[in-house]
Protein backbone atom coordinates (compact mmCIF):
# COMPACT_ATOMS: atom_id res chain seq x y z
CA UNK A 1 0.00 0.00 0.00
CA UNK A 2 1.44 3.35 -0.91
CA UNK A 3 1.85 6.24 1.51
CA UNK A 4 -1.16 8.27 0.37
CA UNK A 5 -3.52 5.32 0.64
CA UNK A 6 -2.21 4.55 4.10
CA UNK A 7 -2.71 8.20 5.13
CA UNK A 8 -6.21 8.24 3.69
CA UNK A 9 -7.12 5.12 5.63
CA UNK A 10 -6.19 6.93 8.87
CA UNK A 11 -8.19 10.01 7.92
CA UNK A 12 -11.27 7.92 7.10
CA UNK A 13 -11.36 5.60 10.12
CA UNK A 14 -12.14 6.47 13.74
CA UNK A 15 -9.27 7.08 16.15
CA UNK A 16 -8.88 5.50 19.57
CA UNK A 17 -10.38 7.74 22.26
CA UNK A 18 -7.94 7.23 25.15
CA UNK A 19 -4.72 8.29 23.37
CA UNK A 20 -6.74 11.09 21.75
CA UNK A 21 -7.72 12.57 25.12
CA UNK A 22 -4.11 12.37 26.32
CA UNK A 23 -2.98 14.10 23.11
CA UNK A 24 -5.58 16.82 23.78
CA UNK A 25 -4.08 17.25 27.25
CA UNK A 26 -0.58 17.69 25.83
CA UNK A 27 -1.75 20.05 23.07
CA UNK A 28 -3.71 22.19 25.53
CA UNK A 29 -0.50 22.73 27.51
CA UNK A 30 1.35 24.08 24.46
CA UNK A 31 -1.71 26.13 23.50
CA UNK A 32 -1.54 27.77 26.93
CA UNK A 33 2.21 28.34 26.68
CA UNK A 34 2.02 29.89 23.23
CA UNK A 35 -1.18 31.95 23.42
CA UNK A 36 -1.39 32.62 27.17
CA UNK A 37 -4.95 31.34 27.41
CA UNK A 38 -6.52 27.98 27.92
CA UNK A 39 -8.54 25.82 25.55
CA UNK A 40 -12.13 26.91 26.11
CA UNK A 41 -15.21 27.44 23.98
CA UNK A 42 -18.16 28.73 26.01
CA UNK A 43 -16.66 32.16 26.70
CA UNK A 44 -16.63 32.88 22.98
CA UNK A 45 -20.19 31.54 22.58
CA UNK A 46 -21.23 34.02 25.29
CA UNK A 47 -19.64 36.85 23.31
CA UNK A 48 -21.65 35.74 20.26
CA UNK A 49 -24.79 36.12 22.39
CA UNK A 50 -23.59 39.61 23.34
CA UNK A 51 -22.97 40.54 19.71
CA UNK A 52 -26.43 39.24 18.81
CA UNK A 53 -27.93 41.51 21.48
CA UNK A 54 -25.88 44.47 20.16
CA UNK A 55 -27.09 43.67 16.66
CA UNK A 56 -30.66 43.70 17.92
CA UNK A 57 -30.07 47.21 19.28
CA UNK A 58 -29.55 46.32 22.97
CA UNK A 59 -26.93 48.43 24.77
CA UNK A 60 -24.78 45.90 26.64
CA UNK A 61 -22.00 48.35 27.58
CA UNK A 62 -23.07 48.35 31.24
CA UNK A 63 -23.64 44.56 31.55
CA UNK A 64 -21.07 43.38 34.09
CA UNK A 65 -20.60 39.90 32.61
CA UNK A 66 -19.73 41.21 29.15
CA UNK A 67 -17.17 43.54 30.79
CA UNK A 68 -15.50 40.46 32.35
CA UNK A 69 -15.66 38.59 29.05
CA UNK A 70 -14.05 41.47 27.12
CA UNK A 71 -16.17 42.04 24.04
CA UNK A 72 -13.40 43.87 22.14
CA UNK A 73 -12.91 42.85 18.54
CA UNK A 74 -14.76 39.99 16.86
CA UNK A 75 -14.47 36.31 16.09
CA UNK A 76 -11.68 37.04 13.56
CA UNK A 77 -9.54 39.12 15.91
CA UNK A 78 -9.89 37.30 19.26
CA UNK A 79 -7.71 34.30 20.10
CA UNK A 80 -10.76 32.32 21.34
CA UNK A 81 -12.70 33.25 18.20
CA UNK A 82 -9.99 32.23 15.75
CA UNK A 83 -9.35 29.04 17.72
CA UNK A 84 -13.04 28.13 17.33
CA UNK A 85 -12.87 28.82 13.57
CA UNK A 86 -9.95 26.38 13.54
CA UNK A 87 -11.97 23.87 15.58
CA UNK A 88 -14.85 24.09 13.09
CA UNK A 89 -12.29 23.56 10.30
CA UNK A 90 -10.98 20.45 12.06
CA UNK A 91 -14.39 18.95 12.81
CA UNK A 92 -15.69 19.64 9.28
CA UNK A 93 -12.61 18.02 7.72
CA UNK A 94 -12.94 15.01 10.02
CA UNK A 95 -16.66 14.58 9.32
CA UNK A 96 -16.25 14.75 5.53
CA UNK A 97 -13.16 12.53 5.49
CA UNK A 98 -14.96 9.89 7.52
CA UNK A 99 -18.14 9.99 5.38
CA UNK A 100 -20.09 10.97 8.48
CA UNK A 101 -22.08 13.86 7.01
CA UNK A 102 -25.81 13.33 6.60
CA UNK A 103 -28.94 15.20 7.67
CA UNK A 104 -30.38 13.52 10.71
CA UNK A 105 -33.62 14.60 12.30
CA UNK A 106 -34.38 14.06 16.00
CA UNK A 107 -36.39 10.90 16.64
CA UNK A 108 -39.17 12.68 18.54
CA UNK A 109 -40.46 16.02 19.78
CA UNK A 110 -39.38 15.12 23.29
CA UNK A 111 -35.76 15.08 22.15
CA UNK A 112 -36.13 18.55 20.58
CA UNK A 113 -37.32 20.01 23.88
CA UNK A 114 -34.63 18.08 25.72
CA UNK A 115 -31.95 19.51 23.43
CA UNK A 116 -33.16 23.08 23.82
CA UNK A 117 -33.91 23.08 27.56
CA UNK A 118 -30.83 21.00 28.41
CA UNK A 119 -28.71 23.29 26.23
CA UNK A 120 -30.03 26.39 28.00
CA UNK A 121 -29.44 24.93 31.49
CA UNK A 122 -25.94 23.79 30.48
CA UNK A 123 -25.07 27.16 28.92
CA UNK A 124 -26.32 29.02 32.00
CA UNK A 125 -24.47 26.68 34.38
CA UNK A 126 -21.24 26.75 32.42
CA UNK A 127 -21.07 30.54 32.45
CA UNK A 128 -22.08 30.76 36.12
CA UNK A 129 -19.24 28.35 36.87
CA UNK A 130 -16.88 30.28 34.55
CA UNK A 131 -16.32 27.42 32.12
CA UNK A 132 -17.63 24.16 30.69
CA UNK A 133 -16.05 20.72 30.59
CA UNK A 134 -12.96 22.47 29.30
CA UNK A 135 -12.24 25.67 31.28
CA UNK A 136 -13.76 24.35 34.52
CA UNK A 137 -12.62 20.73 34.17
CA UNK A 138 -10.23 19.42 31.55
CA UNK A 139 -8.20 22.60 31.04
CA UNK A 140 -9.36 24.35 34.25
CA UNK A 141 -8.11 21.84 36.81
CA UNK A 142 -4.54 21.93 35.41
CA UNK A 143 -4.58 25.71 35.99
CA UNK A 144 -4.55 25.02 39.76
CA UNK A 145 -7.71 27.05 40.33
CA UNK A 146 -9.81 25.69 43.19
CA UNK A 147 -13.05 26.71 41.46
CA UNK A 148 -12.53 23.96 38.86
CA UNK A 149 -12.50 21.34 41.63
CA UNK A 150 -15.72 22.70 43.13
CA UNK A 151 -17.24 22.72 39.64
CA UNK A 152 -16.13 19.17 38.79
CA UNK A 153 -17.47 17.44 41.89
CA UNK A 154 -20.73 19.40 41.70
CA UNK A 155 -20.96 18.50 38.01
CA UNK A 156 -20.74 14.78 38.79
CA UNK A 157 -23.70 15.22 41.18
CA UNK A 158 -25.58 17.13 38.46
CA UNK A 159 -24.82 14.41 35.92
CA UNK A 160 -26.19 11.78 38.31
CA UNK A 161 -29.45 13.72 38.67
CA UNK A 162 -29.62 14.22 34.91
CA UNK A 163 -29.28 10.47 34.35
CA UNK A 164 -32.10 9.79 36.84
CA UNK A 165 -34.37 12.23 34.98
CA UNK A 166 -33.53 11.12 31.44
CA UNK A 167 -34.21 7.50 32.38
CA UNK A 168 -37.75 8.26 33.57
CA UNK A 169 -40.32 6.42 31.45
CA UNK A 170 -41.39 9.66 29.74
CA UNK A 171 -37.90 10.22 28.29
CA UNK A 172 -36.96 6.65 27.47
CA UNK A 173 -36.51 5.66 23.86
CA UNK A 174 -39.71 4.45 22.21
CA UNK A 175 -37.86 2.41 19.59
CA UNK A 176 -39.18 -1.14 19.32
CA UNK A 177 -37.07 -4.23 18.82
CA UNK A 178 -38.00 -5.66 15.40
CA UNK A 179 -38.00 -9.34 14.65
CA UNK A 180 -36.61 -9.88 11.16
CA UNK A 181 -37.42 -12.41 8.52
CA UNK A 182 -35.50 -13.14 5.30
CA UNK A 183 -37.72 -10.78 3.36
CA UNK A 184 -37.25 -7.78 5.66
CA UNK A 185 -35.58 -5.10 3.58
CA UNK A 186 -32.44 -3.50 4.94
CA UNK A 187 -33.05 -0.03 6.36
CA UNK A 188 -30.02 1.93 5.26
CA UNK A 189 -28.12 2.41 2.08
CA UNK A 190 -25.73 -0.49 2.28
CA UNK A 191 -24.75 0.15 -1.33
CA UNK A 192 -22.28 2.94 -0.61
CA UNK A 193 -22.18 5.63 -3.27
CA UNK A 194 -18.47 5.58 -4.03
CA UNK A 195 -18.57 8.90 -5.91
CA UNK A 196 -20.21 10.67 -3.01
CA UNK A 197 -17.66 9.28 -0.56
CA UNK A 198 -14.87 10.46 -2.85
CA UNK A 199 -16.43 13.92 -3.23
CA UNK A 200 -16.84 14.24 0.53
CA UNK A 201 -13.22 13.27 1.07
CA UNK A 202 -12.13 16.04 -1.32
CA UNK A 203 -14.32 18.59 0.49
CA UNK A 204 -12.68 17.60 3.78
CA UNK A 205 -9.24 18.03 2.27
CA UNK A 206 -10.10 21.47 0.86
CA UNK A 207 -11.43 22.68 4.22
CA UNK A 208 -8.36 21.37 6.01
CA UNK A 209 -5.89 22.91 3.58
CA UNK A 210 -7.87 26.17 3.55
CA UNK A 211 -7.59 26.38 7.31
CA UNK A 212 -3.83 25.75 7.27
CA UNK A 213 -3.33 28.38 4.55
CA UNK A 214 -5.42 30.87 6.54
CA UNK A 215 -3.37 30.15 9.68
CA UNK A 216 -0.07 30.57 7.84
CA UNK A 217 -1.33 33.83 6.34
CA UNK A 218 -2.17 35.08 9.85
CA UNK A 219 1.30 34.14 11.08
CA UNK A 220 3.26 35.81 8.25
CA UNK A 221 1.05 38.91 8.35
CA UNK A 222 2.12 39.55 11.93
CA UNK A 223 -0.71 37.88 13.86
CA UNK A 224 1.36 34.97 15.10
CA UNK A 225 -0.79 34.17 18.13
CA UNK A 226 -3.98 34.16 16.05
CA UNK A 227 -2.38 31.90 13.46
CA UNK A 228 -1.18 29.50 16.14
CA UNK A 229 -4.64 29.59 17.77
CA UNK A 230 -6.17 28.53 14.47
CA UNK A 231 -3.72 25.66 14.05
CA UNK A 232 -4.34 24.47 17.60
CA UNK A 233 -8.09 24.84 17.09
CA UNK A 234 -7.81 22.71 13.95
CA UNK A 235 -5.93 20.03 15.86
CA UNK A 236 -8.43 20.08 18.75
CA UNK A 237 -11.34 19.83 16.33
CA UNK A 238 -9.77 17.09 14.25
CA UNK A 239 -8.99 14.96 17.31
CA UNK A 240 -12.38 15.37 19.06
CA UNK A 241 -14.23 14.48 15.85
CA UNK A 242 -11.99 11.64 14.63
CA UNK A 243 -11.94 10.02 18.07
CA UNK A 244 -15.56 11.10 18.78
CA UNK A 245 -14.54 12.52 22.16
CA UNK A 246 -17.61 13.15 24.28
CA UNK A 247 -16.88 14.82 27.62
CA UNK A 248 -20.57 14.48 28.50
CA UNK A 249 -20.41 10.70 28.24
CA UNK A 250 -17.45 10.57 30.64
CA UNK A 251 -19.32 10.70 33.92
CA UNK A 252 -22.82 10.09 32.55
CA UNK A 253 -22.09 6.59 31.28
CA UNK A 254 -20.68 5.42 34.59
CA UNK A 255 -24.29 5.79 35.79
CA UNK A 256 -26.04 4.59 32.61
CA UNK A 257 -24.06 1.48 31.57
CA UNK A 258 -21.13 1.35 34.00
CA UNK A 259 -18.52 2.41 31.43
CA UNK A 260 -15.72 4.60 32.82
CA UNK A 261 -13.27 4.54 29.91
CA UNK A 262 -13.72 8.21 29.01
CA UNK A 263 -13.73 9.42 32.63
CA UNK A 264 -10.46 7.60 33.26
CA UNK A 265 -9.01 9.01 30.02
CA UNK A 266 -9.90 12.54 31.11
CA UNK A 267 -8.17 12.09 34.46
CA UNK A 268 -5.10 10.72 32.66
CA UNK A 269 -5.14 13.70 30.29
CA UNK A 270 -5.24 16.07 33.26
CA UNK A 271 -2.43 14.21 35.04
CA UNK A 272 -0.29 14.85 31.96
CA UNK A 273 -1.34 18.45 31.37
CA UNK A 274 -1.06 19.53 35.04
CA UNK A 275 2.71 19.13 35.06
CA UNK A 276 3.02 20.90 31.71
CA UNK A 277 0.91 23.88 32.76
CA UNK A 278 2.87 23.96 36.03
CA UNK A 279 6.11 24.35 34.06
CA UNK A 280 4.71 27.26 32.06
CA UNK A 281 3.41 28.94 35.23
CA UNK A 282 6.88 28.54 36.78
CA UNK A 283 8.45 30.43 33.87
CA UNK A 284 5.99 33.26 34.26
CA UNK A 285 2.80 32.60 32.27
CA UNK A 286 -0.04 33.71 34.59
CA UNK A 287 -2.65 31.00 35.30
CA UNK A 288 -6.40 31.59 34.90
CA UNK A 289 -7.89 31.64 38.40
CA UNK A 290 -11.62 32.08 39.01
CA UNK A 291 -13.81 32.73 42.07
CA UNK A 292 -14.13 29.66 44.25
CA UNK A 293 -17.63 30.43 45.46
CA UNK A 294 -21.15 29.02 45.29
CA UNK A 295 -21.16 29.99 41.61
CA UNK A 296 -18.78 27.13 40.79
CA UNK A 297 -20.88 24.63 42.76
CA UNK A 298 -24.32 25.74 41.53
CA UNK A 299 -22.97 26.28 38.01
CA UNK A 300 -21.30 22.86 37.99
CA UNK A 301 -24.46 21.08 39.15
CA UNK A 302 -26.66 22.89 36.61
CA UNK A 303 -24.14 22.23 33.85
CA UNK A 304 -23.88 18.52 34.68
CA UNK A 305 -27.66 18.18 34.73
CA UNK A 306 -28.06 20.18 31.52
CA UNK A 307 -25.51 18.30 29.42
CA UNK A 308 -27.08 14.94 30.24
CA UNK A 309 -30.58 16.20 29.38
CA UNK A 310 -29.28 17.80 26.17
CA UNK A 311 -27.08 14.84 25.18
CA UNK A 312 -23.89 16.83 24.67
CA UNK A 313 -21.79 19.64 26.07
CA UNK A 314 -20.37 22.70 24.36
CA UNK A 315 -17.53 20.78 22.76
CA UNK A 316 -19.47 17.67 21.78
CA UNK A 317 -22.30 19.42 19.96
CA UNK A 318 -19.80 21.11 17.63
CA UNK A 319 -18.65 18.00 15.80
CA UNK A 320 -22.08 16.39 15.92
CA UNK A 321 -23.67 19.53 14.45
CA UNK A 322 -21.38 19.55 11.41
CA UNK A 323 -22.14 15.85 10.90
CA UNK A 324 -25.67 17.06 10.17
CA UNK A 325 -27.31 16.08 13.44
CA UNK A 326 -30.06 18.70 13.85
CA UNK A 327 -30.48 17.74 17.50
CA UNK A 328 -27.11 19.28 18.28
CA UNK A 329 -27.77 22.51 16.38
CA UNK A 330 -30.59 22.96 18.86
CA UNK A 331 -28.25 22.21 21.77
CA UNK A 332 -25.86 24.88 20.42
CA UNK A 333 -28.61 27.48 20.16
CA UNK A 334 -29.68 26.53 23.70
CA UNK A 335 -26.14 27.07 24.96
CA UNK A 336 -25.93 30.58 23.53
CA UNK A 337 -29.39 31.42 24.97
CA UNK A 338 -28.41 30.03 28.38
CA UNK A 339 -25.13 31.89 28.56
CA UNK A 340 -26.83 35.13 27.48
CA UNK A 341 -29.46 34.62 30.20
CA UNK A 342 -26.66 34.29 32.73
CA UNK A 343 -25.11 37.53 31.46
CA UNK A 344 -28.54 39.16 31.87
CA UNK A 345 -28.91 38.23 35.56
CA UNK A 346 -25.20 38.38 36.43
CA UNK A 347 -25.22 41.88 37.95
CA UNK A 348 -27.92 40.82 40.43
CA UNK A 349 -26.37 37.54 41.53
CA UNK A 350 -22.63 37.95 41.04
CA UNK A 351 -21.97 39.58 44.45
CA UNK A 352 -23.29 36.87 46.74
CA UNK A 353 -22.47 33.95 44.42
CA UNK A 354 -19.15 34.83 42.81
CA UNK A 355 -17.27 38.11 42.97
CA UNK A 356 -17.30 38.43 46.76
CA UNK A 357 -15.54 35.03 47.00
CA UNK A 358 -11.77 34.68 46.73
CA UNK A 359 -9.97 33.47 43.62
CA UNK A 360 -7.96 30.61 45.05
CA UNK A 361 -4.78 29.49 43.33
CA UNK A 362 -3.57 26.20 44.80
CA UNK A 363 0.03 27.17 43.97
CA UNK A 364 -0.31 30.29 46.16
CA UNK A 365 -2.29 28.64 48.96
CA UNK A 366 -0.02 25.62 49.39
CA UNK A 367 3.24 26.86 47.87
CA UNK A 368 4.44 25.77 44.43
CA UNK A 369 5.27 22.18 45.24
CA UNK A 370 2.50 21.92 47.82
CA UNK A 371 -0.05 23.12 45.25
CA UNK A 372 1.27 20.73 42.62
CA UNK A 373 1.05 17.87 45.11
CA UNK A 374 -2.46 19.00 46.11
CA UNK A 375 -3.64 18.88 42.48
CA UNK A 376 -2.24 15.39 42.07
CA UNK A 377 -3.82 14.21 45.33
CA UNK A 378 -7.18 15.56 44.14
CA UNK A 379 -6.72 13.94 40.70
CA UNK A 380 -5.95 10.63 42.40
CA UNK A 381 -9.09 11.10 44.50
CA UNK A 382 -11.13 11.81 41.35
CA UNK A 383 -9.75 8.63 39.77
CA UNK A 384 -10.78 6.65 42.87
CA UNK A 385 -14.26 8.22 42.78
CA UNK A 386 -14.60 7.09 39.15
CA UNK A 387 -13.54 3.53 39.99
CA UNK A 388 -15.83 3.43 43.03
CA UNK A 389 -18.85 4.67 41.04
CA UNK A 390 -18.17 2.08 38.35
CA UNK A 391 -17.89 -0.66 40.97
CA UNK A 392 -21.18 0.43 42.56
CA UNK A 393 -22.88 0.16 39.17
CA UNK A 394 -21.55 -3.33 38.53
CA UNK A 395 -22.53 -4.47 42.02
CA UNK A 396 -26.07 -3.19 41.47
CA UNK A 397 -26.20 -4.84 38.05
CA UNK A 398 -25.09 -8.17 39.49
CA UNK A 399 -27.80 -7.89 42.14
CA UNK A 400 -30.41 -7.34 39.44
CA UNK A 401 -29.19 -10.28 37.33
CA UNK A 402 -29.14 -12.59 40.36
CA UNK A 403 -32.70 -11.59 41.20
CA UNK A 404 -33.79 -12.23 37.62
CA UNK A 405 -32.39 -15.76 37.87
Amino acid at each position, binding site marked *: MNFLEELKKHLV*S*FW*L*PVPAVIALGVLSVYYFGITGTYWAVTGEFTRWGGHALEFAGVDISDWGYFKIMNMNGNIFTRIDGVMIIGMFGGVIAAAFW*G*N*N*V*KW*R*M*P*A*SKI*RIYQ*ALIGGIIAGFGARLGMGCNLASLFTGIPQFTLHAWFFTFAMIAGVYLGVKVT*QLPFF*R*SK*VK*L*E*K*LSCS*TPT*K*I*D*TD*VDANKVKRFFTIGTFVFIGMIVWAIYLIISGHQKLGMAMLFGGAFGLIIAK*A*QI*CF*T*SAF*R*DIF*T*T*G*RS*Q*MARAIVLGMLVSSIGIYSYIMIGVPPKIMWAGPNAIIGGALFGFGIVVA*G*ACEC*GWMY*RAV*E*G*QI*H*FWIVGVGNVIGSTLLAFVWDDISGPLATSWPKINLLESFGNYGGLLMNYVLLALLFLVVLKLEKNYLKK*LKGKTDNAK
Partner: protein
Amino acid sequence: MQNNTKAPTPTHRLDMHGEPCPYPAIKTLEALRSLNDDDILEIISDCPQSINNIPIDVRNHGFKVLHIDTSTPSVRYFVKR
Protein backbone atom coordinates in the same frame (compact mmCIF):
# COMPACT_ATOMS: atom_id res chain seq x y z
CA MET B 1 -12.00 -0.84 15.90
CA GLN B 2 -13.70 -2.23 12.84
CA ASN B 3 -14.17 -5.92 12.29
CA ASN B 4 -13.00 -7.30 8.98
CA THR B 5 -15.47 -10.15 9.09
CA LYS B 6 -18.51 -10.13 6.83
CA ALA B 7 -21.78 -8.75 8.22
CA PRO B 8 -23.86 -11.65 9.58
CA THR B 9 -27.57 -11.94 8.87
CA PRO B 10 -29.43 -10.45 11.82
CA THR B 11 -32.55 -11.96 13.39
CA HIS B 12 -33.50 -8.78 15.23
CA ARG B 13 -32.98 -5.08 14.66
CA LEU B 14 -32.94 -1.89 16.72
CA ASP B 15 -33.24 1.12 14.45
CA MET B 16 -31.99 3.99 16.60
CA HIS B 17 -32.01 6.68 13.88
CA GLY B 18 -32.27 10.14 15.41
CA GLU B 19 -31.75 8.94 18.99
CA PRO B 20 -28.85 10.62 20.82
CA CYS B 21 -26.61 8.94 23.38
CA PRO B 22 -26.96 7.28 25.78
CA TYR B 23 -30.24 5.80 24.51
CA PRO B 24 -28.78 3.53 21.77
CA ALA B 25 -26.40 1.87 24.24
CA ILE B 26 -29.06 1.46 26.95
CA LYS B 27 -31.57 0.00 24.47
CA THR B 28 -28.93 -2.37 23.08
CA LEU B 29 -28.22 -3.88 26.49
CA GLU B 30 -31.94 -4.22 27.26
CA ALA B 31 -32.60 -5.88 23.91
CA LEU B 32 -29.71 -8.31 24.30
CA ARG B 33 -31.08 -9.51 27.64
CA SER B 34 -34.40 -10.35 25.99
CA LEU B 35 -32.89 -12.39 23.15
CA ASN B 36 -32.01 -16.07 22.83
CA ASP B 37 -28.46 -17.37 22.45
CA ASP B 38 -28.77 -17.92 18.68
CA ASP B 39 -30.28 -14.54 17.90
CA ILE B 40 -28.20 -11.87 16.18
CA LEU B 41 -29.08 -8.25 16.87
CA GLU B 42 -28.37 -5.46 14.42
CA ILE B 43 -28.25 -1.96 15.91
CA ILE B 44 -28.27 1.04 13.59
CA SER B 45 -27.15 4.35 15.10
CA ASP B 46 -26.73 7.51 13.07
CA CYS B 47 -24.68 9.10 15.85
CA PRO B 48 -21.10 8.04 15.08
CA GLN B 49 -20.24 8.70 18.74
CA SER B 50 -21.89 5.34 19.49
CA ILE B 51 -18.62 3.80 18.27
CA ASN B 52 -17.19 4.66 21.71
CA ASN B 53 -20.02 3.16 23.68
CA ILE B 54 -22.03 0.33 22.07
CA PRO B 55 -19.12 -2.09 21.40
CA ILE B 56 -17.52 -1.47 24.82
CA ASP B 57 -20.80 -1.74 26.72
CA VAL B 58 -21.75 -4.93 24.89
CA ARG B 59 -18.44 -6.56 25.84
CA ASN B 60 -18.46 -5.14 29.39
CA HIS B 61 -21.84 -6.72 29.99
CA GLY B 62 -20.64 -10.12 28.82
CA PHE B 63 -22.09 -10.13 25.29
CA LYS B 64 -20.32 -10.51 21.93
CA VAL B 65 -19.59 -8.02 19.13
CA LEU B 66 -19.69 -9.89 15.80
CA HIS B 67 -19.20 -7.10 13.29
CA ILE B 68 -19.17 -3.30 13.00
CA ASP B 69 -19.83 -1.50 9.73
CA THR B 70 -18.67 2.14 9.73
CA SER B 71 -18.75 2.66 5.96
CA THR B 72 -21.91 4.78 6.01
CA PRO B 73 -22.92 7.76 8.21
CA SER B 74 -25.19 5.35 10.08
CA VAL B 75 -23.01 2.90 11.96
CA ARG B 76 -24.28 -0.71 12.10
CA TYR B 77 -23.41 -3.05 14.94
CA PHE B 78 -24.02 -6.80 14.92
CA VAL B 79 -24.02 -8.32 18.37
CA LYS B 80 -25.23 -11.43 20.18
CA ARG B 81 -25.63 -12.73 23.71
